[in-house]
């Protein structure tokens, strides 16, 4: 046979550059779904921001510092030192942002600031209840005093009902600032509380003497 049958497709080879994307057009109903989806997300974010920016309860602090050195825990401090008292709920995750802001504050001012942390301890609970990341973080602050606050009584005496709330006493024991040092719950960043305290300690006139507090209730 002179003629030998050959497969007509056998000589063809795949083109490496050839692309044939397979896609489908989006049906119109999905456009409406997308709008609903975006609206729900917008609402969710609004709710989240609203939750984060809703301040916790607080009351006016006494004009003079009522705190006396606690037995066995007080550190000596000079009469020129400012004192920042912060109510701390050892389980509140929002307080971590407050501690970070406090740390940032302390880094801005001189070392004439003492800190006192009133660590909330519920009544009739194990003394170890307060141990955790927050409590261990407190020990990293210099010139600080950590004081267990049974049932939050001490904090409440200073008008603090929310974790992360601070009260600033000048070297004369006079109350100069009270409020929160975060812009919202668990949100770090520049805020009026830190700025006001910083200006106050540096002898400037602060824009505010009180700010809302964002955190867990004591």
């Amino acid at each position, binding site marked *: 046979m002179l003629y030998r049958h050959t497969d007509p497709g056998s000589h063809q080879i795949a083109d490496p550059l050839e692309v044939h994307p397979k896609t489908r057009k989006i049906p119109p109903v999905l456009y409406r*779904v997308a709008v609903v989806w975006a609206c729900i997300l917008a609402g969710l974010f609004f709710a989240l921001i609203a939750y984060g920016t809703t301040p916790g309860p607080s009351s006016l602090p006494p004009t003079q510092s009522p705190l006396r050195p606690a037995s066995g825990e007080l550190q000596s401090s000079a009469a020129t030192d400012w004192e920042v008292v912060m109510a701390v709920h050892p389980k509140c*995750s929002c307080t971590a942002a407050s501690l970070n802001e406090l740390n940032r504050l302390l880094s801005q001012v001189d070392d004439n600031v003492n800190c006192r942390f009133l660590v909330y301890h519920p009544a009739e609970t194990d003394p170890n209840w307060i141990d955790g990341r927050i409590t261990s973080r407190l020990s990293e602050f210099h010139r600080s005093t950590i004081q267990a606050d049974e049932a939050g009584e001490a904090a409440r005496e200073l008008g603090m009902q929310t974790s992360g709330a601070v009260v600033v006493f000048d070297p004369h024991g006079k109350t100069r600032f009270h409020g929160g040092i975060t812009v919202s719950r668990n949100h770090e*960043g520049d805020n009026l509380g*830190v700025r006001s305290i910083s200006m106050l300690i540096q002898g400037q006139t602060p824009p505010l003497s009180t700010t809302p507090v964002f955190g867990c209730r*004591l």
Partner: protein
Amino acid sequence: MSENKIETSSQLQSADDLFAEHLQSRQINADRALAVVLALQWGFAVACAFWISPYTWIGSQNLVHIHVWSAILGGGMLTVFPVFLAIYFPGQRMTRMIMALAQMQFSALLIHLMGGRIESHFHIFGSLAFLAFYKDPWVFLPAVSVVSLDHLIRSLYWPESVFGVLSPEPLRALEHAAWIIFETVFLILGVRQNRRSLWQLAKLQSSLTQQRDLLEQRVRNRTSEIEQQRRILDTVLQRIPAAVFWRDNDGNFMGCNEMFSEFFGLKTPNDIIGKRMNDIIPPNDQTTNRLSSFCDSPDENVELVNIEETLHDFSGDCRTVLTGATSLHDHEGNCFGTLGSFLDITTLKNAESRAKSLANLIQESPNELYIFDSETYHLVEANTGFVRSLGLDQDNLSKVSPEDFIQDCSNQDLRQRISVAMSSPRGRCAFDTVHVRKDGTTFPVHVDIHRSIFEARPVFVAFCTDLSDSQAMERQLAQAQKLESMGQLAAGIAHEINTPMQCVSGNVEYLTMSYERIFQFTDGLFELLNSPSFTTENAHSQLDALAKKHKYSVLREQTPGAVEEASQAVMRVIEIVRAMKAMSHPGQQEMNDTDLNMLIHQASIISRNRYKYVSELELDLSPDLPQIPAYGAELSQVFINLIVNAADAIAERKESEPEMEGKITISTIQNGETVEIRVRDNGTGMSEDVRSKVFNQFFTTKDVGKGTGMGLSLTYNIVSSKHNGTVLVESEPNVGSCFIVNLPMNTHQPVVDESDANQSDTSRVPILT
């Protein structure tokens, strides 16, 4: 637009398509990649929420933190819908817009979950960079819009959450957006560069593809041409009515066609590959034929053309083949083998030999055959029998036409006769005529002409049969049959003559006695007159006595009657004799006006003795029947045959039905231009089988010795051939038969229709049932 421009436009169009395909392909990949990233981010967000803020506390009581729910639900919403679009509708612009929205909102969610850490804000810039994979600048629009809108709303309602102050500077909000735009601008530039590169790639690919397609098209076209040529060559090889093979210079077969393989008993043509000549051709063939010799030692300058050889095929049959061979050369002219072929012409040779034999048979046949042109009617060819019969010169045949040797028939007459006959489906013309020899003598012939092609020209072929012998034979046969009839009727006729002759004899005897008495009376009368005793007184008594003595009164009364009776008997005899004379007349060569009624009457007289014992004969003859031209003696025989057959049929029936009364009725009547004679009987009748053969020669249903089977055959021949009439028969078993003879009143020489001539004797019999 010039051709180049058209090509360029087409190429650009193709490049656009390729660019769109590439771009969409990459966008689909980006969709899928970002879908994976979203899914991972969802998990990461949930992990962050659980790690950073799993609970919110109110004193010693705790609740699941809203961040956890936000991570699960919000992250889920940010993931599920975009991933669904990425899976089912990848590459669509809306998909990537949703993906961009989701990714930027994920940035917001993660920043929120991570407590607004500065580091977490880098997620925004990473996400923007990721969106660049889409190579679509529009995808930055929703991304930047989300960030800008977030900042705008926050600056309006919660400025402290963004800037840390309640009253930021007016341009502070724009600063954040500016950084986003800064990155976005560079990303867009990068996207444009990527798109440009992709476009260049698509254009290059388009060009390559077009070149490739062009090349492939050329290859396909060329392949198709080669394929077509191969198929043509293969078809030629397989269909050509010759065995073809090709061998290399070493004598090995490289291939052959099917005819070659079949000739040598190979299953397929491929079986020949690698074989040598002595594998398939017996040694004696190989050594004797030139084909194998040439193939074994091909001469480049010599070709073997049309050499007649003998080969033995696989079954051992010796075949005559016409061989040819030539050497094969490659494109450089080098001989690389031999191409050979042979054509089996055994059948052709046999046919040629047979055709020669047939031609010789026809040429040497004593019967006449001639071929004449269908237009000019000049003879084209004639066999020896024709030339010899007519005494023509073989060399001058082309100047002869049928009118030169057919008596009283011009070419025009013949043309008309042929055209009429050829109009029938059979297309044949047959007739009896007379040929005239060169010396003027004539002889009867039967001519059968049909149309044919001779040497590519339309001709008529005429086969002629000399009827001289057959007509003489027919005449002798007719005469013999007539004599046979006469012989069979002789006894009856003798009886018919005997009866009146006895009457004559008796009356003559009586008259002899009468005239002796009359003479005695007259002698006595003379004696009385001379006697002296005769006186006037006693004369009366003497005469009375004499008259009484010789019974004169009886003689006077009976003698005229005897004379009259004898005279009538003599007339009867004369009538019979006249009828016999008319019938036994050998016949005339020409037709004469004939009184059919008289012929029928005479036939009834002659055959009376055959029917008078079994039947009555009733003649219902038309008195106004005109005389018609006919052969009287032959028609007499026809009528006698019909009457005798009718009488025999009645007699046969009476054997089984003795009480039946036989009756033969003969009627004549004029029907237009014909005269119809009906001979009806109420004999045994005939079955269909007998009826179909009744006119065949030598067919008879009578006992041996009673009939020869020639009567009705001759009847048919006399009526149809000699009088151009017809004989029909109606018959029904045990009812009777009726023979209907139609004779034309103006008879001319009949033309024998070739269809009748061709048919059997059975089928040419006209029959009515």
